[in-house]
């Protein structure tokens, strides 16, 4: 594919996602506006109204209807995208596992926002974490560029014949959705070529080969169909790796199942999702300057869980700090036990610490992350730590 260097633009994360969707020129979009996702659907509906895309934009009365419509439209054979956040995702919940079980490769942007209550509109990962067991692939972005890139990459993973699963592209509410960053666009022709034509499997509107979708299953078939989803999730890891390679060829930008920053020779590694990965990189640089060998890693693909890559990164490390922007009340941060399991087969298991941070949009500064990592280095950290809480 031709590499055309375009001028960088200044854009917020929501705008960047909408722009990627415009370049893809999807068939159908149905979404309900909800802060901090609203700009995506506002921008995209403008593209539709101005005739800049051929997309059929369907106005719906709720997120539940949005996802129901999108699942059906994707089933029918149309490339379909939607977007939501927080309460909207919660309202969609009933349809999340149905969509994945129907094996429709739908793309959904989620502008991560804390789930009520108490009522809050700021960023944390409570919305997507609550959806993690519903059979959707989940990607995270650490800046506006990767939010845009994920929007281009996502349909390639979801629509792959071996995968055929819906995919969520997460971007941190406000921190990425609303903050303007400098970003490199991909030429629209290149985006179209990269994403390719949508080739649905047994679509409902294939009159010559009539099919029924969304059928009833007794226990034996239900279990077997769930197992097919397990296999598809496993395959999605390999497919994602392959798509990332192709993406690098096109753009020069490199993504992995787990993105890494200065992990190779590190004694201590921080595992963190989303925009705070950038904050952690700055923390790593500062601590390295002070002579402490720290590294950072971000699961770019959170579901399916990239266990092997995490194990490789953690091998030989003294300690690993797992940062969760959500807490499973009564247990741990959601990533913590999964990272521990990923490390369980290592010859020598690093010490494992969990840091809960940024809940309900609580500020996440370099100094907070640095204090946390220093407590890991000197061994004063607890197993579970609640950091960045102003009211104590």
């Amino acid at each position: 594919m031709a590499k055309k260097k375009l001028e960088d633009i200044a854009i917020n994360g929501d705008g960047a996602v909408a722009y990627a969707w415009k370049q893809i020129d999807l068939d159908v979009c149905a979404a309900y506006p909800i802060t901090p996702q609203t700009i995506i659907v506002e921008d995209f509906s403008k593209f539709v109204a101005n005739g800049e895309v051929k997309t059929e934009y369907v106005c719906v009365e709720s997120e539940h209807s949005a996802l129901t419509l999108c699942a059906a439209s994707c089933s029918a054979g149309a490339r379909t995208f939607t977007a939501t956040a927080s309460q909207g995702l919660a309202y969609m919940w009933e349809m999340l596992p149905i969509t994945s079980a129907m094996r429709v490769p739908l793309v959904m942007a989620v502008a991560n926002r804390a789930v009520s209550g108490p009522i809050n509109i700021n960023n944390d990962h409570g919305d997507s974490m609550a959806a993690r067991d519903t059979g959707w692939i989940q990607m995270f972005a650490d800046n506006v560029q990767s939010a845009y890139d994920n929007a281009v990459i996502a349909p390639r993973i979801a629509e792959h014949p071996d995968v055929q699963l819906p995919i969520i592209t997460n971007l941190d509410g406000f921190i990425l959705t609303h903050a303007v960053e400098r970003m490199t666009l991909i030429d629209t022709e290149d985006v179209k070529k990269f994403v390719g034509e949508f080739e649905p499997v047994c679509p409902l509107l294939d009159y010559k080969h009539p099919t029924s979708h969304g059928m009833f299953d007794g226990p034996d078939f239900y279990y077997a169909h769930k197992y097919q989803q397990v296999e598809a999730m496993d395959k999605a890891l390999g497919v994602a790796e392959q798509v990332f390679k192709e993406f690098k060829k096109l753009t020069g930008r490199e993504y992995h199942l787990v993105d890494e920053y200065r992990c190779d020779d590190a004694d201590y590694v921080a595992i963190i999702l989303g925009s705070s990965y950038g904050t952690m990189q700055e923390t790593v640089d500062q601590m390295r300057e002070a002579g402490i060998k720290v590294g950072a890693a971000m699961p770019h693909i959170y579901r399916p869980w990239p266990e092997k890559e995490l194990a490789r990164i953690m091998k030989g490390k003294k300690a690993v700090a797992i940062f969760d922007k959500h807490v499973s009340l009564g247990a741990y941060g959601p990533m913590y036990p999964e990272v521990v399991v990923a490390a369980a087969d290592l010859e020598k298991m690093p010490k494992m610490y969990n840091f809960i941070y940024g809940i309900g949009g609580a500020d996440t500064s370099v100094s907070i992350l640095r204090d946390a990592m220093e407590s890991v280095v000197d061994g004063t950290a607890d197993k579970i730590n609640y950091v960045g809480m102003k009211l104590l």
Partner: protein
Amino acid sequence: MAKIKIKDMPIGARVCNPGSSEAILTGDWRSYTPVVDKEKCINCLNCWVFCPDNSVIVKEGKLEGFKMSHCKGCGICAQICPKKAIRMTEA
């Protein structure tokens, strides 16, 4: 059941061979059986319209009987009949 392999099943609980529900003998579930009293029946065919399993047999515009391979004994025909001509028996 044992003959079907997971890898051969269409994904997404899709049914890709149309008309295949005929192969599922819903009559196997039946615990009540409809019996029509032809004296009362006026051949309005409401039962035929409402039967969810296409099990009311009609010949030349007249109710003939029930297709026992697929009648699951739900009793909808008996409920819908304006003449109460269908009785559900425990046979």
